[in-house]
């Protein structure tokens, strides 16, 4: 993470419009760098373009303009063969552990998918035995029993499934893992354990994380740096410490204020202060909703694609 090392991931003026109309900008000229070994958290409310941005940097969508460089190579200039090489280096864990696995495949085949796709050792006559052994190791690495190979996804809980997803993502020892709201579908206690696992794997394997979340409490726990997104554009990028202690942009401050405070007396005082002092906030229509999440009132019109996560 020294200033001299070239960034692992570099987004330059990345832009994505859906349907060709100027009103449907999902990602608006985003420039961002992610350095090897760090965790960059991408935060913002629902529909702000976080998911679209991850789809772009995984090259699952083509941008309207701008570039994504991974380890110096432009992703969108690659041909199919070169792209396969890069895909090996970046993996993804998605939000919903119930739809991220093919219900008809056994755990071994789910976790082995990246191996079978990219590793010649997983093919051929001996490949099956090698794959089973490797998948067993991976499952143990994420804290699961290595003997569950022949079971089906529906036999597992949300937290266990998310561990299986993580096992799949680390199988090729990638450099970058995109975590798209990896814990938001889980119970709080399970969340904490999955976050611990992610931190441990990052240390052990030297992973770089792009961690997408709308949950600032989680972000505070995991992030080295934080990028705040609003209506498709970045409003603030900084170290986690900076962003949480001295937010530079008013929108970041709003997000921080919207985090529920687990102390009712303090929470009441904060709310009263917000009502009295911050009238611009109320007028901008970006006020908080009762459950402490940022409201949808000020969100730009969402392109239909973005909603279909």
């Amino acid at each position, binding site marked *: 993470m020294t200033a001299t090392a070239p960034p692992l991931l570099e987004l330059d003026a990345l832009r994505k419009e859906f349907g060709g109309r100027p009103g449907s900008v999902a990602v608006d000229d985003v420039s961002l760098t992610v350095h090897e070994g760090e965790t960059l958290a991408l935060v913002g409310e629902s529909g702000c373009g976080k998911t679209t941005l991850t789809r772009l940097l995984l090259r699952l969508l083509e941008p309207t303009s701008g570039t994504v460089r991974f380890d110096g190579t432009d992703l969108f200039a690659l041909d199919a063969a070169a792209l396969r090489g890069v895909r090996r280096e970046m993996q993804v864990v998605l939000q919903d552990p119930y739809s991220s696995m093919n*219900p008809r495949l056994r755990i071994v085949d789910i976790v082995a998918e990246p191996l079978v796709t990219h590793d010649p050792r997983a093919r051929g006559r001996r490949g099956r035995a090698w794959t089973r052994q490797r998948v067993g190791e991976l499952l143990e690495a994420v804290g699961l029993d290595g003997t569950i190979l022949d079971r089906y996804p529906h036999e597992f809980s949300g937290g266990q499934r998310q561990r299986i997803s993580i096992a799949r993502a680390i199988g090729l020892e990638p450099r970058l893992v995109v975590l798209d709201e990896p814990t938001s579908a889980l119970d709080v206690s399970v969340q904490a354990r999955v976050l611990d696992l992610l931190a441990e794997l990052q240390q052990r394997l030297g992973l770089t994380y792009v961690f997408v979340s709308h949950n600032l409490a989680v972000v505070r726990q995991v992030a080295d740096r934080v990028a705040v997104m609003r209506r498709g554009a970045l409003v603030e990028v900084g170290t986690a410490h900076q962003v949480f202690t001295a937010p530079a942009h008013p929108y970041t401050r709003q997000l921080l204020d919207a985090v529920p405070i687990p102390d009712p007396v303090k929470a009441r005082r904060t709310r009263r202060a917000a009502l009295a002092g911050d009238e611009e906030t109320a007028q901008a229509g970006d006020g908080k909703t009762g459950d402490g999440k940022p409201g949808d009132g000020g969100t730009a019109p969402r392109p239909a694609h973005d909603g279909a996560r």
Partner: protein
Amino acid sequence: MTTISPNPAPAAAHAPAAPSHRTAALRTLLRNRLALAALAFLALVVICALFAPLIAPADPNAQNLLERLQPPAWQHGGSGAHLLGTDQLGRDLLSRVIYGTRVSLLVGTGAALLAGVIGTAAGLASGYFGGLPDRVLMRIADVQLAFPAILLALAVVGFLGSGLWYVILVLGVTGWVSYARVVRSEVLSLRSRDFITEARAIGVGDTTIMRRHLLPNVMAPLATIGTLHVAAAIVAEASLSYLGLGVPKETVTWGAMLADGQLYLGTSWWVAVFPGVALMLTSLAVNITGDALRDVADPKAYRR
């Protein structure tokens, strides 16, 4: 601490024997008495088709004009020599009904398989790629649907000549649309699921995604349409044969027997009724099996 303990004991608790999909599916099927009866009947039909020469009491094409239009054995004037009676040329009806299973089964399964392969390929491509392939394939499907299948079958058979394989070809080619439509809509809903996104992010190729991730998840509706199509093709073959455009005269088919029998319906009902009943029961059994398959194949049914 308890919710995601590293060993999978909690998971084992709600799925005790960890039964595979297949055994669970089989158990559901066995509980359905009607489906069992239908399956038993179909097994009987298959046995008749395979071993027709051993089972049939007589040569289905052997004419005996002295014994023409004899009633079934239990009616006045019937004899034990011809259990279901004889037709207008004195041929043994029981033997003809038994031999008729061959054409019906061959045409039914052949047409359903052919249509299934074409329709599934078209539906997968259409749903997965979208865009131009989708538009082209779906317009072809519309045109196909707008054109009456039986009319097309008549035209092709009239043009190419009659024959068992032409009948299968025609019924197969005209039947693909329903498969394609269903597969396409299933694929459209699957395509946005996370596991497809993950597979694409991993770098799995399009054909592998279709084979590994899409095809197994559309097999259930496919099997249902397939069985329904078998029944429809059996009836369609009978219609073509009834019109004299199906298979050649010397091949015994239920449709041709119906056509023969209708002339004598007033005096000798049995000539038309027995092949008709065989046709009806077979297509009914196939349909019931198809319905049972659909119930069994619903992936949510395994969970409990």
